[in-house]
């Protein structure tokens, strides 16, 4: 027995995994199975979008953590010998994937940007970023199952096709985990999704205080774009929400125009703007790394340059 498995908590992520899962299953001439938590999602939807088989897991009871399912997933995999298991690279699933991989003594390729079957040597070749994004690492997994985590947004969501059929089977209910979720503080998303923005003005630690970000907002407004930021701005200063953090641990953006203000351009950030059509930057340090990954750079103090830019843009 064999197969490709996908595991994601949210439907939108599962559909993305079904897209690549379908490709691999077709090339490897095997079936595609989806692991699904019973309470949240409709199995028929997954079947319509490409799954041949649904493994239904008992819904996690209140306060249960995903790690209760480690033994269930590992036992299923030991009995059914899937070729590969693809996980959505969300916080809880990344954790789950690492523990399942460890339990099964197999390799896990984290945060893959591409997954492809190579028929010539019958291996799955996976690519990911290394050294903060300075390098692209291509790996194969010599043990089975091949385990992979894939960041949300890497693949398009699979679309439903009429007339598809599949089987469903229920998995055993796991014993509760000793890990308990005692409180959930859900945040409301207040900002736009910048992965779709056409123009992005990114702010970095070159700003002295939170109020000064207005300068960046004004510029973003004048350019018809949104603001984004570096990790220290969102994680350390908490000046902007995390979903605006661009880079390795944030989002990858692909605007027509990216303008970094007071951003040093270290590789972990720069890797997030690789797909921008035009990159520009304002930094007072002429040796800042951002200038080597920018098309146009203004060497100067942003507090001097931004007002001048606003003036000049008014005249356009």
């Amino acid at each position: 027995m064999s197969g490709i498995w996908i595991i994601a908590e949210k439907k939108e992520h599962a559909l993305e995994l079904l897209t690549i899962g379908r490709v691999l299953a077709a090339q490897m001439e095997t079936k595609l199975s989806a692991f699904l938590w019973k309470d949240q999602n409709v199995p028929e939807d997954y079947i319509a979008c490409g799954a041949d088989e649904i493994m239904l897991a008992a819904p996690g009871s209140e306060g249960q953590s995903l790690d209760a399912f480690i033994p269930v997933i590992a036992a299923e995999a030991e009995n059914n010998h899937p070729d590969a298991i693809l996980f959505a690279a969300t916080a809880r699933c990344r954790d789950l994937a690492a523990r399942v991989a460890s339990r099964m003594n197999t390799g896990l390729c984290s945060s893959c940007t591409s997954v492809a079957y190579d028929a010539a040597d019958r291996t799955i070749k996976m690519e990911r970023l290394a050294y903060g994004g300075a390098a692209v690492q291509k790996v194969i997994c010599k043990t089975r199952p091949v385990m992979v985590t894939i960041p949300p947004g890497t693949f398009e969501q699979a679309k439903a096709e009429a007339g598809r059929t599949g089987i469903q089977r229920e998995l055993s209910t796991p014993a509760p985990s000793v890990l308990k979720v005692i409180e959930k503080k859900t945040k409301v998303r207040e900002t736009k999704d910048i992965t779709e923005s056409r123009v992005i003005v990114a702010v970095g630690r070159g700003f002295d205080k939170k109020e000064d970000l207005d300068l960046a907002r004004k510029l973003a407004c004048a350019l018809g774009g949104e603001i984004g930021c570096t990790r220290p701005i969102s994680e350390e200063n908490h000046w902007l929400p995390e979903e605006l953090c661009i880079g390795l641990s944030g989002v990858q953006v692909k605007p027509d125009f990216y303008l970094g203000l007071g951003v040093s351009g270290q590789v972990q950030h720069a890797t997030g703007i690789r797909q921008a059509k035009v990159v520009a930057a304002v930094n007072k340090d002429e040796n800042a790394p951002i200038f080597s990954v920018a098309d146009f750079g203004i060497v100067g103090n942003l507090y001097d340059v931004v007002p001048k830019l606003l003036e000049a843009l008014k005249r356009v």
Partner: protein
Amino acid sequence: MPTIITCFKWVIDEAYIRRGSSGDLDFSAVDYKISDYDRNAIEEAVKLKAVHGGTVASLTVGVPEATKGIKDSLSRGPDKAFFAADASFNNLEPSQTASLLAAVIRSFITPYDLILCGEGSSDLYTQQVGPRLAEILQIPSISFVQKVELKDGKVVAERRVEEGVEVVEAPLPALVTVLPDINVPRIPGVKDTLMASKKPVVTIKKEDLPPFPAPCLETVEMKAAKMDRSCEKFGTDAAEIARFVDVLRKKALI
């Protein structure tokens, strides 16, 4: 009083990696460092000790040259260090690193209460070693933590997930991986460095450990990521700003 283990990786400072002419990685000018977020883990361990007492041990598995990292780690506050050193502990894959760390902990640092790791290493950033280590030791793990407390034999942590924050509780011993915003790691001073050289270091040889597994993953290629940009620079006087805006206009960006 708790025994806290803080694991760290001695890594290449990625800021010094250059792109070679044929697209390969040029490591000729590199320096090494304690992986960024592991410094947060060490800091957090030392902070917890300040509240609860107990001892903090830093731990790494690496090549003999990583002894510099051991000194660095001790200058950040831990009481002692464990160093599994061998020339073959190079380019380890996450499954191997976790297995070696588990072996050292089992044989040399048991019993313990809490293991702290960084969220991911700054070189490969696979974010696996923490949870893998917990799985081998069969203890609960909580990843991506922004706040951690010890209370009545339990660890209570705030972990960050896509929807917000979850407050999670687990009995000790447990493992926690920390996010960079959990604290600001100290910058060791001259006195800290002097004190560090007096602290005990237990060096463990490969022969003292059970054989470690073969790698599961194999890197078949590692090439420099491409960033081809025109790198044109501008000044800040009126003419230069006008030229900058003009370029943007020509590119139809404004």
